[in-house]
């Protein structure tokens, strides 16, 4: 069963075409990684999946629902789709545990006790069981990002979207976040990740999409894509990455 099914998706911002003819498929339990330069449309594609952006053409089905959806249906879908952002976006006026429990409580109607139980479970899962009562500003970037992952997990989603979640972190803090995502992948969570961490992509991805100028330029399993890129654009992209490292 496909969790996400994109068929010739297109998206424009005014005159600017940011996505054109994007077709891919995310089967249940699989990890799809999107790579590409800044401005290639990766993040926009990800944002279309949970309706933060509306597509202009083509078909996009998420968990069996055809986008775009009416507000009420979209909210119902978002309960099932977790999203983690580059800049964490924790709620700064709430403690860690409040950040994690607020949505289960007010959106899913969980009781305080139920929500706390879920929160303790997901915070343990991301290795922050001892930070429950901290405020976000007291945490490192890596810890904040792990809280953001826990916040999404607390909704018990069927699909997780990660939008360059380590790009704002110091290099020594990316490891702890990637380990959490890696263990989610091993547990069978369906995920779509936009990332610049090529080594990580190689390890966790079942399928890699290379986006260029709003199109899927090249795609395939990570072994083939990273070792034998076919298009000069991908070769150049991968070489540039190696030079940086």
């Amino acid at each position, binding site marked *: 069963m496909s969790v996400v099914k994109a068929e010739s998706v297109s998206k424009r911002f005014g005159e600017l075409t940011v996505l054109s003819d994007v077709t891919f498929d995310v089967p249940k339990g699989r990890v799809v990684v999107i790579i590409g330069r800044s401005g290639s449309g990766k993040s926009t594609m990800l944002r279309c999946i949970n309706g*933060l952006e509306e597509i202009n053409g083509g078909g996009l089905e998420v968990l069996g629902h055809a986008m775009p959806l009416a507000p009420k249906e979209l*909210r*119902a879908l*978002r309960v099932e789709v977790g*999203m983690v952002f580059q*800049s964490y976006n924790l709620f700064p*006026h709430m403690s860690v545990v409040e950040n994690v429990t607020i*949505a289960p409580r007010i959106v899913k109607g969980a009781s305080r006790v139920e929500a706390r139980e879920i929160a303790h479970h997901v915070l343990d899962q991301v290795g922050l069981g001892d930070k429950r009562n901290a405020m976000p500003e007291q945490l490192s970037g890596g810890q904040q990002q792990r809280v953001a992952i826990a916040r999404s997990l607390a909704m018990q989603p069927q699909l997780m979207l990660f939008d360059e979640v380590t790009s704002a972190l110091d290099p020594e803090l990316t490891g702890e976040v990637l380990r959490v995502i890696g263990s989610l992948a091993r547990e069978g969570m369906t995920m779509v990740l936009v990332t610049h961490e090529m080594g990580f992509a190689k390890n966790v991805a079942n399928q890699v999409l290379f986006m260029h100028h709003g199109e899927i330029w090249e795609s395939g399993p990570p072994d083939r894509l990273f070792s034998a890129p076919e298009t000069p654009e991908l070769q150049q992209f991968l070489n540039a990455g190696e030079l940086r490292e």
Partner: protein
Amino acid sequence: MFGQFGWHAITLLLLAARWTVLLSALAFALGGAAGFVVALLRTGRSPVLRGLSATYIEVVQGTPVLILLFVAYFGVALVGIDVPPLLAASIALTVFSSAYLGEIWRGCIDSIPRAQWEASESLAMTRWQQLRHIILPQAFRISLPPTVGFLVQLIKNTSVASLISMVELTREGQLIANATFRPLSTFVAVALIYFVLCFPLSKFSQTLERRLHVGRQS
């Protein structure tokens, strides 16, 4: 009645200051409630309501308080209803406060990063849940110093009510000055009473601002 400016006059001024306080409190409470609605409409999703609330703010901010007062006082009287000065002044200052507080609070709501809206939206919250739990609590914190600052302006602006013969602090001052022929002493006393009302609030506003700033940096 009074030959000179003394304790009796000061007592009268203090009694009249109660009306200044009452009028300020009324205008702040009612104007705050209306201003909250204005701020929500101004930042809402309906373009029509956004436009209407923006126009409302522009028009009220572009009109002197005194003119608002005259419109409330003489305008309503035109319909044949006799308006007591306290009512007219309350209406005028409520309108005045609602526009200014609405604009102040709109700024506070707008200053909450878009990412906070997106994060809460991704967690399937409704717009009202986003406002109630995520946006407004953060905006409230930011809004405290300018809101208290505005209250100081409001207290001083209640003096316009003297022009429709409402005997609040300023009007009482005029009456006493006329009776005692001691305008300077009288109005210095009046000014001191305004100062005593406003100064603690100004200080409070500054303290809030400092505390907020420290909180942000840590």
